[in-house]
């Protein structure tokens, strides 16, 4: 198989070299990374078939883009004037694309009914200058996953996970005291603290938990009491060796799958990850090894979390936005396809509450916890085209606080840096 693949590649080598220039003027191009994953392929192929049957004569072309390159690719192709009609993004990147005028307003392309089926917080997050420029394809609220076995061992009740941040901290500290397992020490929680915007993004729910936010009126404002509290909360846990230091998403996930961390914050993909990475040893069920709960509540009792949804947009340069939107309509609202998507990937397949609340998704307890979280999930916690830069600076600040610096000093500096970079 391996050899055959190489041979066939050699035969088409010359074609590969000149592959880029092909332009299909009348067709609909969809770029994204879903197609890359085996688990979402069946649904994507089904959608393609259905779409082409519905719109006879239209050729749907799937353009694979690496996740890490998706924003860059979309940006460059938009500047160069030949973007795909439909572009898959994550919510945080939407402002960057919207700012260069790359996205088409969707308000008039979808029916009012369709739009209303999307939760309002999601719509708000994806609205840029009053216009809806993206729709969530796979909503991704970040919830608290916890290891029931470790809780039991630490003398905690696995059926009543921590509901407030102080409770969570206590649980973390308790689990942290457990003896070594699988060749390494057991951590209370696997927090992301690597030097990556992603680490800062994942700490935003902790800021919410301390009653604040990192922006005011869509302007980033990290220098405040709650951010400072959140960073100190993280630093205290890390410095008591109850969370690893410097880990990114891959390392934290490994840790959790090895039953060496009591808690982890993950989206609806958490179930699949835990199962895969533990080679099926761990079950994700209400009474199984791992289960999920809503984020702990802030002091005022509110529960808020961030989302990291995969969204779909239509390029402002698309020659045929109606046809493009019809593809979105197919993948988002066709029950057969969303069911297939849900079965094969476990991800929330649509942003429509109608779909999420009924059928296969409606019957799934794990999925329903995420659906429940949608109304208080904030998909773009910072609405800025320099989303990554802001979070990147915050991540470095977080590392500084962990290494012992005064959080207020650090945040003053981070705030200045963000402001000066926003001016560029």
């Amino acid at each position, binding site marked *: 198989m391996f050899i055959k*693949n190489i041979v066939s590649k050699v035969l088409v080598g010359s074609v*590969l070299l000149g592959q*880029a220039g092909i332009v299909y003027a009348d067709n609909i191009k969809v770029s994204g990374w879903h197609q890359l994953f085996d688990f979402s392929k069946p649904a994507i192929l089904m959608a393609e078939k259905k779409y082409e049957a519905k719109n006879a004569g239209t050729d749907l072309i799937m353009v694979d883009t690496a996740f890490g390159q998706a924003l860059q690719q979309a940006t460059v192709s938009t500047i160069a004037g030949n973007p795909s009609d439909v572009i898959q993004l994550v919510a945080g990147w939407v402002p960057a694309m919207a700012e260069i005028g790359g996205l088409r307003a969707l308000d008039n392309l979808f029916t009012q009914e369709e739009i209303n089926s999307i939760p309002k917080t999601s719509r708000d997050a994806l609205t840029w200058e009053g216009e809806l420029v993206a729709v969530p394809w796979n909503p991704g609220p970040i919830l608290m996953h916890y290891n029931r076995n470790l809780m039991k061992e630490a003398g905690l009740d696995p059926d009543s996970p921590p509901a407030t941040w102080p409770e969570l901290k206590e649980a973390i500290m308790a689990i942290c005291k457990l003896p070594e397992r699988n060749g390494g020490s057991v951590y209370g929680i696997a927090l992301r603290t690597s030097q990556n915007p992603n680490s800062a993004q994942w700490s935003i729910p902790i800021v919410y938990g301390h009653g604040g936010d990192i922006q005011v009126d869509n302007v980033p404002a990290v220098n405040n009491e709650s951010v400072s509290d959140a960073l100190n909360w993280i630093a205290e846990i890390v410095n008591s060796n109850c969370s690893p230091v410097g880990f990114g998403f891959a390392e934290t996930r*490994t840790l959790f799958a090895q039953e060496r961390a009591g808690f982890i914050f993950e989206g609806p993909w958490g179930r699949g990850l835990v199962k895969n990475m533990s080679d099926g040893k761990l079950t994700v069920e209400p009474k199984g090894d791992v289960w999920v709960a809503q984020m702990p509540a802030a002091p005022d009792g509110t529960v808020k979390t961030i989302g990291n949804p995969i969204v779909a947009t239509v390029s402002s340069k698309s020659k045929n936005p109606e046809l493009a939107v019809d593809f979105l309509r197919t993948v988002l609202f066709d029950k057969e396809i969303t069911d297939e998507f849900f079965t094969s990937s476990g991800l929330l397949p649509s942003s429509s509450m109608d779909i999420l609340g009924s059928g296969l998704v409606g019957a799934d307890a794990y999925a329903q916890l995420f659906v429940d979280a949608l109304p208080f999930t904030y998909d773009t916690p910072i609405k800025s085209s320099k989303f990554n830069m802001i979070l990147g600076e915050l991540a470095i600040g977080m590392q500084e606080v962990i290494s012992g610096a005064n959080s207020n000093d650090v945040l003053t500096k981070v705030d200045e840096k963000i402001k000066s970079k926003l001016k560029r």
Partner: protein
Amino acid sequence: MKFSFSKLVRGYIIPYGLQASALASTAILISPIVWMVSTSLKKESEVFDRPPVWIPSEISFDSYFRIMNSFVANILYNSILVALLAAIIATVIGAMTAYALSRFAIPGKSTIMLFFLSSLAFPIPLLMMSMYILLMKMGLLDTLLSMIIGHTVITLPITVWLMKNFIDQIPKEIEEAAYVEGASFLRIIFFIVFPLSMPALTASALFVFVTSWNELFFGLSFISSPDLRTVPVGISQSFLQEFKTDWTGMMSLAVIVTIPIGIIFVFLQKSFLRGMIAGSVKG
């Protein structure tokens, strides 16, 4: 027989001491690679054993079978294609230029050579930005050609430098003899000079190949289609992005992508070093 301390030192202690230190330092220097191979042959369960286990209790090729999929075949194929073409193009063009610099009366020759030498140290990101804009305008972004161009550009200076120093050492009389015998200039260059420069050509081609095989950032910025990824790009963009830190799989992949140049070097190491040393020691 009289016992002599100095004889003991000279006859046994020094030779065995040298042998032992040579063996020890070699062992230490290649230990990371041994560890890589060792990990790749372990069973998943043994990977996390402490203290570290150097020789797996049971050799297992599972991880190799697990990662040998079309994705790996694809990145290997792309890398081989790009590295091979870059090596050929850079070496041939470099050799042609080197020949001209070595044999023709070109004004400012030493300045040109100094420029080539210093361009090895040029800030690559600075080069990449304008190249990016150029390639975008030429419509070459997201083609293997863009990477081939990039890799040729950053290695051309060294091929010129290596080849020029080597060609300088070939006696001109050989070319004159061929010229008197009626060979045309092109024939002299391609049938006399280049065959004689084989060590330098090998060294430059290998240098370009290795550089290209290693190069991540042109691939990262110029390529967006997963089909066109080379080994470093494929690994950093897909493998490291995968959800799992699968160490045996990672190490197997590391072994697999090291093998192609490893094999080339086992066969061509001598020639490579000869050309490299002839070309660089002098300069």
